[in-house]
């Protein structure tokens, strides 16, 4: 990105001043190196989002941002319904409520390594990963309805999960306001046999070791200690979310024109929050959030079965489950007053600081775990939310390393088999149905996740707690 077009606020915050149709500025977070490495299209897309009606304060662009469709991936934008604010299907994306959950195993790395290869093979065979994989779960019409209303709580009722998990999932495992009646038949049909599947692309299940602790007090509160083994799952709402995104993107385009919204990019098709279509989208999107929460709960159940088989007595306790493709109604202080806003986070993680009323009782004093997935070779991070006054980014942080290279370029540069062999030499076992998929997700195709989270910390978005090093990666 050409950073000469930005105003440097400090070492990790840069402002794109309003110009043309922009109603608010865009604030980009990251050090100079991260900003220079971003595509200019990130700035263009942020400027387009800043032109949408009812946008509040600024478009916030996270340090892992990259060129998306409509919104930049890593973009945060809040809208006020009372000020003509909009809801934008493209601002959530196709993989509604895609997110990450991390579970404690109670195992030490040395213990896990005694059965590492066998565990990797068993996880590959039990965790449906990749296009076309199925868990064997088929939902009838009534079950689909119950899942869309109940989320992870529904999965627990079905026996896929533990009741105690729910308090460690955003929204208590069940997103209120879901309206399955606005979920199309096509979306339901796509999801009928996709519950309990990981999906493809950058979705994964990893077994990881706590490699380094940055904040011992918060790490202790999170139950993380050096050498401890955890399991992290990254996936979303599968075909149901994809189809809801497709359905509403199509419907919002003519509706935006009818509402007199002059779109800077058709992919930003949006409608007023206070409109029939806006409310239908929110109801359907919340149902898709429940689908994602249920899906991750079921996948964790499958992982628990494999771990219990390999390590008798091993129970995977949920640290936290947080989504990074959402639109949520939240209260934020803007210009000295509290306002109810609809915060779109597309590739950005909600990061509530200490004392936030929506946090579970046992985490409220320390803040929300912010789970950041890296690439399969370079590790992941656990961060903690900071006081809301520290950053103005609507309590948001990065969501991953962010791609540094296209899939196309990655495939030309690496062979999947070589990537798997190289990682195996470093003690990381990768299992995937597709070697081409592994090449496209090669560690070198991603930005340095350590640099991204350090920039997030320096910008006050969230604080580093622990670094996780991969031991096993099941790649979809």
């Amino acid at each position, binding site marked *: 990105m050409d950073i000469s077009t930005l105003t440097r606020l400090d070492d990790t915050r840069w402002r794109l001043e309003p110009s043309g149709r922009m109603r608010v500025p865009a604030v980009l977070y990251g050090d100079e190196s991260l900003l220079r490495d971003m595509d200019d299209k990130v700035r263009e897309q942020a400027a387009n989002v800043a032109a949408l009606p009812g946008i509040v304060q600024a478009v916030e662009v996270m340090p892992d941002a990259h060129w998306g469709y409509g919104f930049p991936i890593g973009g945060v934008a809040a809208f006020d319904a009372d000020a003509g604010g909009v809801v934008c299907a493209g601002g959530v994306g196709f993989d509604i409520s895609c997110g990450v959950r991390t579970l404690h195993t109670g195992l030490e790395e040395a213990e896990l390594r005694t059965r590492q290869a066998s565990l990797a093979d068993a996880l590959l065979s039990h965790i449906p990963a990749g*296009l076309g994989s199925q868990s064997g779960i088929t939902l009838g019409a009534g079950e689909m309805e119950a899942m869309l209303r109940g989320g992870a709580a529904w999965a627990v009722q079905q026996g896929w999960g533990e009741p105690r998990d729910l308090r460690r999932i955003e929204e208590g495992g069940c997103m209120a306001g879901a309206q399955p009646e606005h979920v199309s038949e096509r979306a339901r049909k796509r999801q009928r046999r996709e519950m309990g599947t990981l999906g493809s692309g950058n979705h994964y299940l990893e077994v990881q070791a706590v490699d380094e602790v940055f904040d011992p007090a918060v790490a202790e509160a999170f139950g993380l200690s050096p050498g401890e083994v955890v399991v992290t799952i990254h996936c979303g709402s599968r075909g149901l979310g994809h189809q809801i995104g*497709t359905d509403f*993107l199509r419907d919002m385009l003519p509706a935006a024109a009818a509402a007199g919204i002059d779109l800077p990019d058709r992919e930003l098709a949006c409608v007023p929050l206070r409109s029939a279509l806006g409310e239908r989208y929110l109801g359907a999107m919340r149902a898709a959030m429940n689908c994602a929460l249920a899906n991750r709960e079921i996948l964790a159940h499958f992982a628990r079965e494999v771990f219990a088989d390999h390590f008798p007595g091993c129970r995977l306790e949920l640290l936290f489950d947080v989504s990074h493709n959402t639109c949520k109604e939240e209260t934020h202080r803007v210009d000295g007053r509290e306002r109810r806003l609809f915060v779109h986070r597309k590739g950005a993680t909600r990061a509530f600081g200490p004392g936030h009323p929506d946090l579970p009782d046992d985490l409220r004093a320390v803040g929300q775990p912010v789970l950041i997935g890296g690439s399969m070779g370079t590790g992941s991070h656990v961060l903690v939310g900071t006081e809301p006054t520290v950053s103005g980014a609507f309590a948001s942080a990065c969501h991953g390393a962010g*791609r540094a290279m*296209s899939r196309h370029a990655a495939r030309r540069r690496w062979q999947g088999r070589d990537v798997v062999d190289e990682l195996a030499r470093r003690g990381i076992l990768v299992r995937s149905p597709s070697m*081409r998929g592994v090449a496209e997700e090669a560690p070198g195709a991603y930005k340095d996740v350590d640099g991204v989270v350090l920039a997030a910390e320096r910008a006050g978005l969230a604080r580093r707690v622990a670094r996780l090093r991969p031991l096993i990666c099941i790649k979809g």
Partner: protein
Amino acid sequence: MKGSEANESWALLPHDADVVVEGRGATPEAAFAQAARALTHAITDTPVAAREAVTVTCRAPDRELLLVEWLNAVIYEMAVGGRLFDRFAVVIVADGDAGWQLTATLWGEPLDRARHAPACEAKGATYSALTVHADTQGGWVARCVIDV
């Protein structure tokens, strides 16, 4: 990645996070068919046999939106039927004042996870980098970003 035969070709163009599919041909129909082939090749390098046929119909007010509807129809059939397709016969006709109507036959086969080793999953076609236009040589280009 790209492929071509006669006056038709498909290509996968670079994008930071997703993929750009592009089809080229002598007519809009041929360009649409080639864009769908690019979509399939975003998923697998393995040849897809034309063993089964599915018919789809979609409508849109302009050609560009029709391309998105078309690719989403292919994605839906892939997802629900568990199939991959690599041969397409596309017919586009004016739909009165409503724009355009597309009818197509898709030929393919059930996804074989071992043989096709799918690298990714197409989630949906987007309006980003969306274009359907005649090029300077008189051929047609159809292109957009697919979320994978």
